[in-house]
Protein backbone atom coordinates (compact mmCIF):
# COMPACT_ATOMS: atom_id res chain seq x y z
CA UNK A 1 0.00 0.00 0.00
CA UNK A 2 2.84 2.37 0.87
CA UNK A 3 6.25 1.90 -0.67
CA UNK A 4 9.07 4.11 0.47
CA UNK A 5 12.22 3.72 -1.54
CA UNK A 6 15.63 5.28 -1.03
CA UNK A 7 14.11 8.14 0.93
CA UNK A 8 16.72 10.74 1.84
CA UNK A 9 16.29 13.93 3.80
CA UNK A 10 19.03 16.41 4.57
CA UNK A 11 18.92 19.47 6.76
CA UNK A 12 21.76 21.62 5.58
CA UNK A 13 24.76 19.35 5.91
CA UNK A 14 23.07 16.92 8.25
CA UNK A 15 21.51 13.78 6.86
CA UNK A 16 18.47 12.82 8.89
CA UNK A 17 17.38 10.02 6.56
CA UNK A 18 19.69 8.12 4.30
CA UNK A 19 18.22 6.00 1.52
CA UNK A 20 15.59 4.39 3.68
CA UNK A 21 13.31 1.88 1.99
CA UNK A 22 10.45 -0.08 3.44
CA UNK A 23 7.01 -1.22 2.55
CA UNK A 24 3.68 -1.20 4.34
CA UNK A 25 1.21 -3.89 3.45
CA UNK A 26 -2.50 -3.36 3.48
CA UNK A 27 -4.08 -4.19 6.79
CA UNK A 28 -0.96 -4.54 8.88
CA UNK A 29 0.35 -2.62 11.84
CA UNK A 30 3.96 -1.77 11.21
CA UNK A 31 6.11 -0.60 14.11
CA UNK A 32 8.73 2.00 13.33
CA UNK A 33 11.28 2.26 16.08
CA UNK A 34 14.73 3.63 16.63
CA UNK A 35 16.72 5.75 19.04
CA UNK A 36 15.93 9.38 19.58
CA UNK A 37 16.93 11.41 16.58
CA UNK A 38 17.09 8.42 14.28
CA UNK A 39 14.69 10.02 11.82
CA UNK A 40 11.32 8.47 12.57
CA UNK A 41 9.42 11.74 12.78
CA UNK A 42 11.34 13.07 9.81
CA UNK A 43 10.23 10.02 7.88
CA UNK A 44 6.61 10.72 8.84
CA UNK A 45 7.06 14.34 7.88
CA UNK A 46 8.27 13.37 4.42
CA UNK A 47 5.58 10.81 3.83
CA UNK A 48 2.77 13.06 5.03
CA UNK A 49 4.00 16.01 2.98
CA UNK A 50 5.02 18.29 5.83
CA UNK A 51 8.60 18.20 4.55
CA UNK A 52 9.69 17.73 0.96
CA UNK A 53 12.12 14.82 0.69
CA UNK A 54 15.59 15.51 -0.64
CA UNK A 55 15.54 12.38 -2.73
CA UNK A 56 13.66 9.12 -3.11
CA UNK A 57 10.16 8.10 -4.01
CA UNK A 58 7.11 7.49 -1.91
CA UNK A 59 4.33 5.52 -3.54
CA UNK A 60 0.94 5.34 -1.93
CA UNK A 61 -1.74 3.16 -3.52
CA UNK A 62 0.32 3.17 -6.67
CA UNK A 63 0.89 6.93 -7.04
CA UNK A 64 4.05 8.85 -6.26
CA UNK A 65 3.14 11.29 -3.52
CA UNK A 66 6.57 12.67 -2.76
CA UNK A 67 6.41 16.47 -2.63
CA UNK A 68 2.61 16.79 -2.54
CA UNK A 69 1.15 19.09 0.09
CA UNK A 70 -0.20 17.52 3.29
CA UNK A 71 -3.81 18.29 2.43
CA UNK A 72 -3.58 16.49 -0.90
CA UNK A 73 -2.00 13.50 0.74
CA UNK A 74 -4.65 13.53 3.42
CA UNK A 75 -7.37 13.48 0.78
CA UNK A 76 -5.80 10.41 -0.72
CA UNK A 77 -6.29 8.66 2.57
CA UNK A 78 -3.03 9.05 4.44
CA UNK A 79 -3.00 10.93 7.76
CA UNK A 80 -0.58 11.32 10.60
CA UNK A 81 -0.55 12.43 14.21
CA UNK A 82 2.04 14.73 15.68
CA UNK A 83 4.48 13.58 18.30
CA UNK A 84 4.09 16.84 20.18
CA UNK A 85 0.34 17.45 20.00
CA UNK A 86 -0.74 20.40 17.93
CA UNK A 87 -4.39 20.99 18.75
CA UNK A 88 -6.27 24.01 17.47
CA UNK A 89 -6.50 25.74 20.80
CA UNK A 90 -9.22 28.18 19.89
CA UNK A 91 -11.57 25.50 18.62
CA UNK A 92 -13.54 23.28 20.93
CA UNK A 93 -12.51 19.66 21.15
CA UNK A 94 -15.51 18.64 19.10
CA UNK A 95 -14.75 21.25 16.44
CA UNK A 96 -11.15 20.13 16.27
CA UNK A 97 -12.37 16.76 15.19
CA UNK A 98 -15.33 17.94 13.15
CA UNK A 99 -13.22 20.18 10.99
CA UNK A 100 -10.98 17.25 10.22
CA UNK A 101 -13.97 15.09 9.41
CA UNK A 102 -15.39 17.70 7.08
CA UNK A 103 -12.30 18.72 5.17
CA UNK A 104 -10.11 15.67 5.49
CA UNK A 105 -12.42 13.07 4.06
CA UNK A 106 -11.73 11.81 0.60
CA UNK A 107 -15.29 12.60 -0.27
CA UNK A 108 -16.67 15.84 1.07
CA UNK A 109 -19.29 15.20 3.74
CA UNK A 110 -21.97 17.60 4.87
CA UNK A 111 -21.32 19.64 7.97
CA UNK A 112 -23.95 17.82 9.99
CA UNK A 113 -22.57 14.49 8.91
CA UNK A 114 -19.07 15.65 9.85
CA UNK A 115 -20.23 16.57 13.32
CA UNK A 116 -21.86 13.21 13.77
CA UNK A 117 -18.68 11.48 12.69
CA UNK A 118 -16.69 13.62 15.07
CA UNK A 119 -18.78 12.45 18.00
CA UNK A 120 -18.30 8.83 17.02
CA UNK A 121 -14.55 9.25 16.82
CA UNK A 122 -14.39 11.10 20.12
CA UNK A 123 -16.29 8.27 21.65
CA UNK A 124 -13.95 5.75 20.08
CA UNK A 125 -10.79 7.33 21.51
CA UNK A 126 -12.43 7.98 24.84
CA UNK A 127 -12.65 11.75 24.93
CA UNK A 128 -15.69 13.53 26.37
CA UNK A 129 -18.20 14.46 23.72
CA UNK A 130 -19.19 17.64 25.54
CA UNK A 131 -18.98 19.99 22.62
CA UNK A 132 -17.88 23.20 24.33
CA UNK A 133 -14.72 22.07 26.14
CA UNK A 134 -11.47 23.50 24.84
CA UNK A 135 -8.26 21.54 24.29
CA UNK A 136 -6.50 23.72 26.91
CA UNK A 137 -8.39 21.77 29.52
CA UNK A 138 -6.86 18.51 28.41
CA UNK A 139 -3.79 17.04 30.06
CA UNK A 140 -0.97 15.39 28.20
CA UNK A 141 -2.92 12.19 27.75
CA UNK A 142 -6.02 13.93 26.50
CA UNK A 143 -4.04 15.80 23.90
CA UNK A 144 -2.61 12.57 22.55
CA UNK A 145 -6.09 11.20 22.22
CA UNK A 146 -7.23 14.31 20.47
CA UNK A 147 -4.39 13.96 17.98
CA UNK A 148 -5.54 10.47 17.25
CA UNK A 149 -9.18 11.44 17.03
CA UNK A 150 -8.45 14.20 14.58
CA UNK A 151 -6.45 11.91 12.36
CA UNK A 152 -9.06 9.18 12.45
CA UNK A 153 -11.85 11.60 11.67
CA UNK A 154 -10.43 12.17 8.21
CA UNK A 155 -11.24 8.56 7.46
CA UNK A 156 -7.75 7.47 6.43
CA UNK A 157 -6.71 4.24 4.81
CA UNK A 158 -3.27 4.56 6.31
CA UNK A 159 -2.52 6.17 9.65
CA UNK A 160 0.91 7.29 10.75
CA UNK A 161 0.81 7.40 14.54
CA UNK A 162 3.75 9.19 16.13
CA UNK A 163 4.08 8.25 19.80
CA UNK A 164 0.39 8.15 20.46
CA UNK A 165 0.84 6.45 23.82
CA UNK A 166 3.63 8.59 25.21
CA UNK A 167 2.45 10.13 28.46
CA UNK A 168 -0.54 7.85 28.96
CA UNK A 169 -0.87 6.07 32.25
CA UNK A 170 -0.64 2.30 32.14
CA UNK A 171 -4.37 1.82 32.25
CA UNK A 172 -4.96 4.26 29.45
CA UNK A 173 -2.09 2.78 27.54
CA UNK A 174 -3.59 -0.62 27.57
CA UNK A 175 -6.91 0.65 26.34
CA UNK A 176 -5.23 2.81 23.72
CA UNK A 177 -3.27 -0.11 22.37
CA UNK A 178 -6.48 -2.00 22.29
CA UNK A 179 -8.07 0.81 20.44
CA UNK A 180 -5.36 0.81 17.78
CA UNK A 181 -6.02 -2.82 17.26
CA UNK A 182 -9.69 -2.11 16.87
CA UNK A 183 -8.96 0.69 14.45
CA UNK A 184 -7.18 -1.79 12.29
CA UNK A 185 -9.65 -4.57 12.81
CA UNK A 186 -13.01 -2.79 12.65
CA UNK A 187 -12.21 0.21 10.51
CA UNK A 188 -9.69 -1.60 8.36
CA UNK A 189 -7.09 1.12 8.71
CA UNK A 190 -3.49 0.24 8.09
CA UNK A 191 -1.15 1.72 10.69
CA UNK A 192 2.48 2.72 10.91
CA UNK A 193 3.25 3.21 14.52
CA UNK A 194 6.16 4.94 16.18
CA UNK A 195 6.49 4.27 19.88
CA UNK A 196 9.17 3.87 22.49
CA UNK A 197 7.15 1.74 24.85
CA UNK A 198 8.31 -1.67 23.74
CA UNK A 199 6.22 -3.72 26.08
CA UNK A 200 3.10 -2.46 24.40
CA UNK A 201 4.30 -1.92 20.88
CA UNK A 202 5.88 -5.27 20.38
CA UNK A 203 2.69 -7.03 21.36
CA UNK A 204 0.54 -5.17 18.91
CA UNK A 205 2.56 -4.81 15.72
CA UNK A 206 2.89 -7.36 12.97
CA UNK A 207 6.27 -6.22 11.76
CA UNK A 208 8.93 -3.80 12.90
CA UNK A 209 11.31 -1.52 11.02
CA UNK A 210 14.25 -0.16 12.99
CA UNK A 211 16.05 3.06 12.13
CA UNK A 212 19.34 4.29 13.49
CA UNK A 213 21.09 7.44 12.45
CA UNK A 214 18.79 7.76 9.50
CA UNK A 215 19.42 4.29 8.18
CA UNK A 216 17.40 1.13 8.36
CA UNK A 217 19.24 -1.37 10.52
CA UNK A 218 16.69 -4.10 10.93
CA UNK A 219 13.29 -5.24 9.77
CA UNK A 220 11.18 -8.24 10.63
CA UNK A 221 8.88 -9.86 13.12
CA UNK A 222 8.97 -8.34 16.59
CA UNK A 223 10.48 -11.36 18.22
CA UNK A 224 13.33 -11.53 15.74
CA UNK A 225 14.03 -7.85 15.89
CA UNK A 226 14.02 -7.84 19.68
CA UNK A 227 16.84 -10.30 19.59
CA UNK A 228 18.89 -8.58 16.93
CA UNK A 229 22.11 -7.50 18.70
CA UNK A 230 22.37 -4.29 16.70
CA UNK A 231 18.90 -3.28 17.78
CA UNK A 232 19.63 -4.15 21.37
CA UNK A 233 22.78 -2.13 21.36
CA UNK A 234 21.44 0.91 19.55
CA UNK A 235 17.97 1.02 20.91
CA UNK A 236 16.73 -1.38 23.50
CA UNK A 237 19.74 -1.25 25.80
CA UNK A 238 18.87 -4.62 27.32
CA UNK A 239 17.30 -7.76 26.16
CA UNK A 240 13.58 -7.59 26.54
CA UNK A 241 11.39 -10.55 27.02
CA UNK A 242 8.21 -10.72 25.02
CA UNK A 243 5.70 -13.04 26.49
Amino acid at each position, binding site marked *: MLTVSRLTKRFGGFTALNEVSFEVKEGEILGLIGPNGSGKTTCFNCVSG*VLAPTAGTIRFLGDDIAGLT*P*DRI*CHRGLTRTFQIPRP*FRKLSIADNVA*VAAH*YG*ATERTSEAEARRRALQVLDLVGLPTDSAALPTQLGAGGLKKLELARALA*TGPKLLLADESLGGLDPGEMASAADMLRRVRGELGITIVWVEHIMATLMRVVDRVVVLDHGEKIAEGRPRDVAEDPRVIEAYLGEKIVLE
Partner: protein
Amino acid sequence: MSATPGRIAFATVVAFLGIAPFLPMAGMKQYMLHVVIQIFIWTFIGQAWSLMGRFGLVSLGHGAFLGIGAYATTLLWNFYGLTPWIGSLVAVALAVVMAFLVAYPCSRFGIIGHYFALTTLAVGEVVRLLIIAERDWTGGSLGVTLKAAGDASFIALQYADKQVWYYVGLVLWLAGLWVWARLDRSMARAAMEAIGEDETAAASVGIRVTRFKLWLTVLSAALTALGGVAYAQYITYVNPETLSGIGVSLRIVFAVVLGGMYSLLGPTVGTALTIALSEWLRIVFGVKFIGMAETIYGLLLVIFIIFLPAGIYGSLADLVRRRRRPAAAPATA
Protein backbone atom coordinates in the same frame (compact mmCIF):
# COMPACT_ATOMS: atom_id res chain seq x y z
CA MET B 1 -32.05 30.32 25.86
CA SER B 2 -32.79 33.97 26.20
CA ALA B 3 -30.13 36.64 25.93
CA THR B 4 -27.08 35.26 24.20
CA PRO B 5 -24.93 37.97 22.65
CA GLY B 6 -25.79 36.61 19.22
CA ARG B 7 -29.45 37.11 19.91
CA ILE B 8 -28.95 40.55 21.30
CA ALA B 9 -26.98 41.50 18.22
CA PHE B 10 -29.68 40.10 16.00
CA ALA B 11 -32.38 41.95 17.89
CA THR B 12 -30.41 45.18 17.70
CA VAL B 13 -29.98 44.85 13.96
CA VAL B 14 -33.67 44.09 13.48
CA ALA B 15 -34.70 47.00 15.65
CA PHE B 16 -32.38 49.30 13.82
CA LEU B 17 -33.67 48.05 10.49
CA GLY B 18 -37.15 48.89 11.60
CA ILE B 19 -36.34 52.55 11.98
CA ALA B 20 -33.38 52.94 9.62
CA PRO B 21 -35.30 53.59 6.42
CA PHE B 22 -37.16 56.47 8.02
CA LEU B 23 -34.26 58.20 9.69
CA PRO B 24 -33.33 60.54 6.85
CA MET B 25 -36.93 61.59 6.44
CA ALA B 26 -37.15 62.81 9.97
CA GLY B 27 -35.16 65.77 8.78
CA MET B 28 -31.74 64.52 9.68
CA LYS B 29 -29.24 67.31 9.20
CA GLN B 30 -27.11 67.18 6.08
CA TYR B 31 -23.98 66.96 8.16
CA MET B 32 -25.38 64.13 10.25
CA LEU B 33 -26.30 62.31 7.09
CA HIS B 34 -22.80 62.84 5.81
CA VAL B 35 -21.35 61.31 8.95
CA VAL B 36 -23.75 58.38 8.96
CA ILE B 37 -23.07 57.62 5.30
CA GLN B 38 -19.36 57.57 6.01
CA ILE B 39 -19.98 55.24 8.92
CA PHE B 40 -21.91 52.86 6.69
CA ILE B 41 -19.30 52.79 3.98
CA TRP B 42 -16.32 52.48 6.28
CA THR B 43 -18.09 49.82 8.30
CA PHE B 44 -18.59 47.83 5.15
CA ILE B 45 -14.88 48.15 4.44
CA GLY B 46 -14.10 47.23 8.02
CA GLN B 47 -16.28 44.15 7.77
CA ALA B 48 -14.44 43.15 4.64
CA TRP B 49 -11.14 43.55 6.43
CA SER B 50 -12.27 41.61 9.47
CA LEU B 51 -13.12 38.61 7.32
CA MET B 52 -9.36 38.10 7.15
CA GLY B 53 -8.25 39.82 10.30
CA ARG B 54 -10.15 37.62 12.67
CA PHE B 55 -8.26 34.60 11.43
CA GLY B 56 -4.87 36.10 12.05
CA LEU B 57 -4.44 37.40 8.52
CA VAL B 58 -3.82 40.93 9.69
CA SER B 59 -3.48 42.99 6.57
CA LEU B 60 -2.08 46.48 6.88
CA GLY B 61 -2.40 47.01 3.17
CA HIS B 62 -6.11 47.10 2.53
CA GLY B 63 -5.62 50.62 1.32
CA ALA B 64 -4.27 49.03 -1.85
CA PHE B 65 -7.58 47.34 -2.63
CA LEU B 66 -9.53 50.38 -1.61
CA GLY B 67 -7.41 52.52 -3.91
CA ILE B 68 -7.68 50.12 -6.80
CA GLY B 69 -11.45 50.08 -6.47
CA ALA B 70 -11.79 53.82 -6.22
CA TYR B 71 -9.29 54.70 -8.92
CA ALA B 72 -10.38 52.09 -11.43
CA THR B 73 -14.00 53.23 -11.60
CA THR B 74 -13.08 56.89 -11.46
CA LEU B 75 -10.52 56.72 -14.23
CA LEU B 76 -12.68 54.50 -16.42
CA TRP B 77 -15.51 56.98 -16.08
CA ASN B 78 -13.34 60.03 -16.63
CA PHE B 79 -11.37 58.72 -19.59
CA TYR B 80 -13.77 56.34 -21.30
CA GLY B 81 -17.14 57.32 -19.92
CA LEU B 82 -17.62 53.78 -18.69
CA THR B 83 -20.45 53.64 -16.18
CA PRO B 84 -19.38 52.75 -12.64
CA TRP B 85 -21.88 49.90 -12.72
CA ILE B 86 -19.54 48.14 -15.11
CA GLY B 87 -16.48 49.96 -13.87
CA SER B 88 -16.95 48.54 -10.43
CA LEU B 89 -16.87 45.04 -11.91
CA VAL B 90 -13.57 45.90 -13.51
CA ALA B 91 -12.39 47.38 -10.23
CA VAL B 92 -13.34 44.26 -8.33
CA ALA B 93 -11.64 42.11 -10.94
CA LEU B 94 -8.46 44.15 -10.61
CA ALA B 95 -8.56 43.94 -6.84
CA VAL B 96 -9.04 40.20 -7.10
CA VAL B 97 -6.02 39.89 -9.37
CA MET B 98 -3.99 42.02 -7.00
CA ALA B 99 -5.16 40.01 -3.99
CA PHE B 100 -4.19 36.88 -5.81
CA LEU B 101 -0.74 38.21 -6.59
CA VAL B 102 -0.20 39.01 -2.95
CA ALA B 103 -1.95 36.11 -1.32
CA TYR B 104 -0.67 33.30 -3.46
CA PRO B 105 3.00 33.64 -2.62
CA CYS B 106 2.11 34.61 0.94
CA SER B 107 0.19 31.44 1.58
CA ARG B 108 2.48 29.30 -0.51
CA PHE B 109 5.57 30.37 1.40
CA GLY B 110 3.90 30.55 4.76
CA ILE B 111 4.21 34.28 5.35
CA ILE B 112 2.16 34.78 8.47
CA GLY B 113 1.86 36.93 11.56
CA HIS B 114 3.95 40.07 11.68
CA TYR B 115 5.52 39.19 8.37
CA PHE B 116 2.15 39.14 6.67
CA ALA B 117 1.15 42.42 8.26
CA LEU B 118 4.30 44.16 7.18
CA THR B 119 4.37 42.62 3.72
CA THR B 120 0.88 43.86 3.06
CA LEU B 121 1.89 47.20 4.48
CA ALA B 122 4.57 47.38 1.82
CA VAL B 123 2.04 46.41 -0.83
CA GLY B 124 -0.16 49.28 0.27
CA GLU B 125 2.77 51.66 0.06
CA VAL B 126 3.75 50.45 -3.38
CA VAL B 127 0.25 51.03 -4.67
CA ARG B 128 0.21 54.49 -3.16
CA LEU B 129 3.61 55.37 -4.60
CA LEU B 130 2.62 54.04 -7.99
CA ILE B 131 -0.55 56.11 -8.00
CA ILE B 132 1.58 59.14 -7.27
CA ALA B 133 4.25 58.24 -9.80
CA GLU B 134 1.68 57.70 -12.56
CA ARG B 135 0.55 61.27 -12.21
CA ASP B 136 -0.34 61.74 -15.85
CA TRP B 137 -3.22 59.37 -15.38
CA THR B 138 -4.04 59.54 -11.76
CA GLY B 139 -3.33 63.15 -11.00
CA GLY B 140 -0.56 62.23 -8.59
CA SER B 141 -0.98 63.28 -5.00
CA LEU B 142 -3.41 65.89 -6.22
CA GLY B 143 -5.97 63.20 -6.83
CA VAL B 144 -8.76 63.24 -9.40
CA THR B 145 -12.28 64.50 -9.34
CA LEU B 146 -15.01 62.44 -10.91
CA LYS B 147 -16.29 64.07 -14.05
CA ALA B 148 -19.59 65.57 -13.03
CA ALA B 149 -22.78 64.19 -14.52
CA GLY B 150 -25.40 66.53 -13.14
CA ASP B 151 -27.13 66.39 -9.82
CA ALA B 152 -28.48 62.90 -10.10
CA SER B 153 -27.43 60.31 -12.60
CA PHE B 154 -28.08 56.62 -12.36
CA ILE B 155 -25.63 55.80 -15.14
CA ALA B 156 -22.84 57.75 -13.51
CA LEU B 157 -23.92 56.69 -10.04
CA GLN B 158 -23.68 60.27 -8.91
CA TYR B 159 -26.21 61.78 -6.59
CA ALA B 160 -25.87 65.15 -4.95
CA ASP B 161 -28.72 64.13 -2.65
CA LYS B 162 -27.31 62.56 0.46
CA GLN B 163 -30.49 60.59 1.14
CA VAL B 164 -29.76 58.37 -1.83
CA TRP B 165 -26.34 57.65 -0.43
CA TYR B 166 -27.84 56.92 2.92
CA TYR B 167 -29.77 54.04 1.43
CA VAL B 168 -26.83 52.86 -0.63
CA GLY B 169 -24.76 52.84 2.55
CA LEU B 170 -27.46 50.98 4.44
CA VAL B 171 -27.62 48.27 1.81
CA LEU B 172 -23.85 47.91 1.78
CA TRP B 173 -23.75 47.64 5.53
CA LEU B 174 -26.41 44.94 5.53
CA ALA B 175 -24.59 43.08 2.81
CA GLY B 176 -21.43 43.20 4.91
CA LEU B 177 -23.29 41.83 7.92
CA TRP B 178 -24.75 39.07 5.83
CA VAL B 179 -21.41 37.93 4.44
CA TRP B 180 -19.87 38.06 7.88
CA ALA B 181 -22.64 36.01 9.44
CA ARG B 182 -22.63 33.50 6.60
CA LEU B 183 -18.96 32.83 7.07
CA ASP B 184 -19.22 32.77 10.82
CA ARG B 185 -21.78 30.02 10.88
CA SER B 186 -20.10 27.71 8.45
CA MET B 187 -17.53 25.06 9.03
CA ALA B 188 -15.20 27.25 7.00
CA ARG B 189 -14.85 29.37 10.09
CA ALA B 190 -13.44 26.47 12.04
CA ALA B 191 -11.11 25.68 9.15
CA MET B 192 -9.85 29.25 9.06
CA GLU B 193 -9.33 29.31 12.79
CA ALA B 194 -7.34 26.13 12.46
CA ILE B 195 -5.22 27.63 9.70
CA GLY B 196 -4.70 30.77 11.70
CA GLU B 197 -3.30 28.76 14.56
CA ASP B 198 -1.24 26.06 12.94
CA GLU B 199 -1.01 25.75 9.20
CA THR B 200 0.91 22.51 9.18
CA ALA B 201 -1.52 20.78 11.48
CA ALA B 202 -4.43 22.17 9.50
CA ALA B 203 -3.01 20.89 6.24
CA SER B 204 -2.36 17.53 7.82
CA VAL B 205 -6.04 17.01 8.53
CA GLY B 206 -6.85 17.85 4.95
CA ILE B 207 -7.68 21.53 5.07
CA ARG B 208 -6.55 23.19 1.87
CA VAL B 209 -4.58 25.94 3.43
CA THR B 210 -3.45 27.78 0.33
CA ARG B 211 -6.82 27.66 -1.29
CA PHE B 212 -8.62 28.85 1.84
CA LYS B 213 -6.33 31.77 2.40
CA LEU B 214 -6.52 32.75 -1.23
CA TRP B 215 -10.24 32.55 -1.27
CA LEU B 216 -10.62 34.60 1.86
CA THR B 217 -8.13 37.25 0.78
CA VAL B 218 -9.81 37.52 -2.58
CA LEU B 219 -13.24 37.84 -1.01
CA SER B 220 -12.04 40.46 1.41
CA ALA B 221 -10.21 42.38 -1.31
CA ALA B 222 -13.19 42.32 -3.62
CA LEU B 223 -15.50 43.69 -0.96
CA THR B 224 -12.95 46.30 0.02
CA ALA B 225 -12.67 47.41 -3.58
CA LEU B 226 -16.45 47.73 -3.69
CA GLY B 227 -16.27 49.89 -0.61
CA GLY B 228 -13.67 51.99 -2.37
CA VAL B 229 -15.97 52.41 -5.35
CA ALA B 230 -18.82 53.50 -3.10
CA TYR B 231 -16.67 55.96 -1.23
CA ALA B 232 -15.27 57.48 -4.41
CA GLN B 233 -18.73 57.80 -5.94
CA TYR B 234 -20.02 59.47 -2.84
CA ILE B 235 -17.15 61.89 -2.31
CA THR B 236 -16.66 62.25 -6.09
CA TYR B 237 -12.99 62.71 -5.55
CA VAL B 238 -10.13 60.28 -5.00
CA ASN B 239 -6.62 60.90 -3.81
CA PRO B 240 -3.84 58.56 -2.84
CA GLU B 241 -3.62 59.83 0.70
CA THR B 242 -7.24 59.09 1.67
CA LEU B 243 -7.63 55.92 -0.32
CA SER B 244 -4.33 54.18 -0.19
CA GLY B 245 -1.20 53.79 1.84
CA ILE B 246 -0.63 53.17 5.50
CA GLY B 247 -2.82 55.84 7.02
CA VAL B 248 -6.11 54.57 5.71
CA SER B 249 -5.14 50.94 6.18
CA LEU B 250 -4.40 51.55 9.83
CA ARG B 251 -7.60 53.48 10.20
CA ILE B 252 -9.67 50.54 8.99
CA VAL B 253 -7.87 48.13 11.28
CA PHE B 254 -8.26 50.48 14.20
CA ALA B 255 -11.96 50.80 13.85
CA VAL B 256 -12.49 47.08 13.59
CA VAL B 257 -10.23 46.08 16.44
CA LEU B 258 -11.71 48.77 18.60
CA GLY B 259 -15.19 47.45 18.00
CA GLY B 260 -14.15 43.83 18.22
CA MET B 261 -13.30 41.81 15.18
CA TYR B 262 -14.65 38.56 16.47
CA SER B 263 -18.23 39.67 16.69
CA LEU B 264 -20.89 40.50 14.17
CA LEU B 265 -21.46 44.07 15.25
CA GLY B 266 -17.87 44.78 16.23
CA PRO B 267 -16.82 46.53 13.03
CA THR B 268 -19.99 48.61 13.07
CA VAL B 269 -19.56 49.74 16.64
CA GLY B 270 -15.87 50.44 16.14
CA THR B 271 -16.29 52.39 12.94
CA ALA B 272 -19.18 54.42 14.26
CA LEU B 273 -17.26 55.19 17.39
CA THR B 274 -13.99 56.21 15.73
CA ILE B 275 -15.68 58.41 13.17
CA ALA B 276 -18.04 59.98 15.66
CA LEU B 277 -15.26 60.44 18.18
CA SER B 278 -12.88 62.16 15.84
CA GLU B 279 -15.64 64.42 14.49
CA TRP B 280 -16.84 65.25 17.94
CA LEU B 281 -13.41 65.96 19.35
CA ARG B 282 -12.53 68.17 16.42
CA ILE B 283 -15.70 70.16 16.91
CA VAL B 284 -15.30 70.45 20.67
CA PHE B 285 -11.74 71.62 20.57
CA GLY B 286 -11.94 73.42 17.24
CA VAL B 287 -8.84 75.54 16.93
CA LYS B 288 -8.61 76.41 20.60
CA PHE B 289 -6.11 73.79 21.69
CA ILE B 290 -4.36 72.69 18.56
CA GLY B 291 -3.55 69.02 18.67
CA MET B 292 -5.64 68.34 21.77
CA ALA B 293 -8.46 66.63 19.90
CA GLU B 294 -6.12 64.15 18.26
CA THR B 295 -4.21 63.72 21.50
CA ILE B 296 -7.33 62.63 23.29
CA TYR B 297 -8.33 60.47 20.35
CA GLY B 298 -4.99 58.65 20.47
CA LEU B 299 -5.17 58.31 24.21
CA LEU B 300 -8.68 56.85 24.08
CA LEU B 301 -7.62 54.36 21.42
CA VAL B 302 -4.77 53.15 23.60
CA ILE B 303 -6.97 52.92 26.65
CA PHE B 304 -9.72 51.07 24.84
CA ILE B 305 -7.31 48.55 23.43
CA ILE B 306 -5.66 47.98 26.77
CA PHE B 307 -8.80 47.63 28.83
CA LEU B 308 -11.14 46.12 26.28
CA PRO B 309 -8.89 43.72 24.41
CA ALA B 310 -11.79 42.00 22.68
CA GLY B 311 -13.02 45.35 21.44
CA ILE B 312 -15.83 47.39 22.83
CA TYR B 313 -18.62 45.31 21.45
CA GLY B 314 -16.71 42.09 21.86
CA SER B 315 -15.96 42.78 25.51
CA LEU B 316 -19.56 43.64 26.25
CA ALA B 317 -20.68 40.46 24.57
CA ASP B 318 -18.16 38.49 26.60
CA LEU B 319 -19.47 40.06 29.74
CA VAL B 320 -23.02 39.03 28.96
CA ARG B 321 -21.84 35.55 28.15
CA ARG B 322 -19.83 35.24 31.34
CA ARG B 323 -22.72 36.36 33.47
CA ARG B 324 -24.85 33.68 32.01
CA ARG B 325 -22.34 30.87 32.23
CA PRO B 326 -19.59 31.35 34.78
CA ALA B 327 -17.24 29.03 32.95
CA ALA B 328 -13.65 28.28 33.77
CA ALA B 329 -11.50 31.16 32.69
CA PRO B 330 -8.60 29.83 30.72
CA ALA B 331 -5.57 29.94 32.96
CA THR B 332 -2.22 30.87 31.59
CA ALA B 333 0.26 28.26 32.51
